């Protein structure tokens, strides 16, 4: 690998690990010290490797230098050393006796502990996602801002406030107790779910970044499955959902980065391996009586891995949406449920139900009505698509709606003209 790529890549994978392991040792209140030590380590790598060449094992080099820098820091900052020594249970000669553990097991433990610290109820949801991206996924402020389609200042402040909160509330980075797992696992899952969705549905044009977000959410989710206490049915269901969705990653954008709709996707581009994995995790998720919204969403996603439009497929999807909406309402589920209703029970019934949804500020609502009225009442279909166009914001959405409008106009023109010629 070229050195120019090596350091950024290592930064992405190792920065977060070292920071997390250090925080696990120091406590969250010293997160800035941890971040400084790791930044210095990478700075040194960038300077030295150019001159002396890349070490044989770059990762081991980073761990070793980070360890030494930590020892140096403790040596020169006696007060800090004393302060943390109580937590570390080191009484004398802290700097000499400190042992930083960079085994895979300790890295995994540290990241899990950090995940549960970030998902403490005192941290607002949007800060939880940004903190996860920053501390657990190694994303920089700029990347997070890009993913959220906002500016760097907003994210910078959000992270700063989030870290401040972790410090002032004295949140401990430690292995969560069973009680804490029960209390916080739903929030951890929500954060991962939102993290994944941020990548999957974001209107950011940066497809590489979006894919990275999804992969990171999956990696963290997998971390939960590796620990017996957090390996819950819901966690398995959520991972299944992510596998099914991401199996379509290559098929859902074309070479120009434009969205390819589900119905137009080339199924050869669907990732069979991920679909199989999804089925595996969904089976594991179903070994109990628990039925979370992730189970239902994963099952819906499972049916979408069958491209063929069968009566059975849509009947199953409809029933899953019926159940999902009874657990938790969301406008998007209501719209998708009505689409499935049209496929399973016919358009006439679905139009009556759609009109009741009354989601008049949502362009997807008018697009749904446009779709349902197509071939039943094309004038109404056109009216609805035109309203959708005025409400849509993103370029992708506008393009899709325009294609529908053009198709309808074409259809109308081809109609045999009635009356006298």
């Amino acid at each position, binding site marked *: 690998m070229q050195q120019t790529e090596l350091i950024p890549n290592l930064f992405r994978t190792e920065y977060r690990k070292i920071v997390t392991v250090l925080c696990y040792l120091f406590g969250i209140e010293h997160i800035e010290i941890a971040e400084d030590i790791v930044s210095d380590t990478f700075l040194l790598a960038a300077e030295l490797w150019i001159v002396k060449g890349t070490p044989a094992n770059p990762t081991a080099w980073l761990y070793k230098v980070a360890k030494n820098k930590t020892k140096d820091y403790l040596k020169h900052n006696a007060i800090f050393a004393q302060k943390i020594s109580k937590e570390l249970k080191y009484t004398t000669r802290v700097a000499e006796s400190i042992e930083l553990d960079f085994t895979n097991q300790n890295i995994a433990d540290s990241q899990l502990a950090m995940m549960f610290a970030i998902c403490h109820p005192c941290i607002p949801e949007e800060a939880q996602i940004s903190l996860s991206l920053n501390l657990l996924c190694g994303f920089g402020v700029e990347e997070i801002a890009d993913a959220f389609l906002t500016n760097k200042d907003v994210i910078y402040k959000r992270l700063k406030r989030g870290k401040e909160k972790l410090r002032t509330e004295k949140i401990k980075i430690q292995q969560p107790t069973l009680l804490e797992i029960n209390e916080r696992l739903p929030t951890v899952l929500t954060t991962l779910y939102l993290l994944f969705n941020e990548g999957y549905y974001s209107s950011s044009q940066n497809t590489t970044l979006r894919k990275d977000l999804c992969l990171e959410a999956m990696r963290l989710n997998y971390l939960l499955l590796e620990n017996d206490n957090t390996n819950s049915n819901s966690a398995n269901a959520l991972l299944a959902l992510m596998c099914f969705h991401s199996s379509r990653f290559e098929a859902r954008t074309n070479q120009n980065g434009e969205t390819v709709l589900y119905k137009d996707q080339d199924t050869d581009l669907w990732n069979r391996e991920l679909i199989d994995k999804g089925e595996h995790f969904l089976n594991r998720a179903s070994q109990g009586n628990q039925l979370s919204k992730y189970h239902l969403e994963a099952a819906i996603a499972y049916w979408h891995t069958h491209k063929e439009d069968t009566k059975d497929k849509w*009947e199953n999807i*409809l*029933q899953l*949406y*019926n*159940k999902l*909406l*009874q657990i938790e*309402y969301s406008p998007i*589920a*209501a719209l998708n*449920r*009505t689409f499935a*209703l049209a496929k399973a*029970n016919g358009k006439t019934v679905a139009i009556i*139900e759609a009109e*009741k*949804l*009354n989601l008049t500020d949502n362009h997807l609502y008018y697009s749904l009505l446009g779709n349902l009225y197509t071939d039943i009442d094309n004038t109404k279909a056109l009216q609805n698509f035109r309203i959708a166009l005025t409400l849509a914001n993103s370029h992708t959405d506008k393009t899709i709606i325009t294609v529908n409008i053009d198709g309808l106009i074409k259809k109308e023109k081809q109609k045999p003209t009635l009356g006298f010629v």
Partner: protein
Amino acid sequence: MKEFLLVFRRDFVTNEAQPSPEQMQGMMKHWQDWMGGIAAQNKLVSSGNRLSSEGRVVKPNNVITKGPYVEIAEAIGGYIIVSADSIDEAAEMSKGCPILHIGGNVEIRTVVAMDDNS
């Protein structure tokens, strides 16, 4: 928005009043489609419960009867809670209830809110 209890009643006793096998088949789907439709409007407060036909009625002086079918043929088969602007809207919603296809009925009652003393 107010909350309304929808109580589903039907005759569980009289032989002639029981749904045919054809009616029973697909009953689950009809119920789920109907409740899913209410939930899609964000108006399902509670998906309630189905009740089995077994029952007891406790009366004063230690009298317990098998019931509740002794005096009335109709019994409660289940309930849900919905939200609506008015009792008329709740009644309108109930028109799609599958119980109506098998000779049952829906009773709609306004839930009295904690702070409502009217």
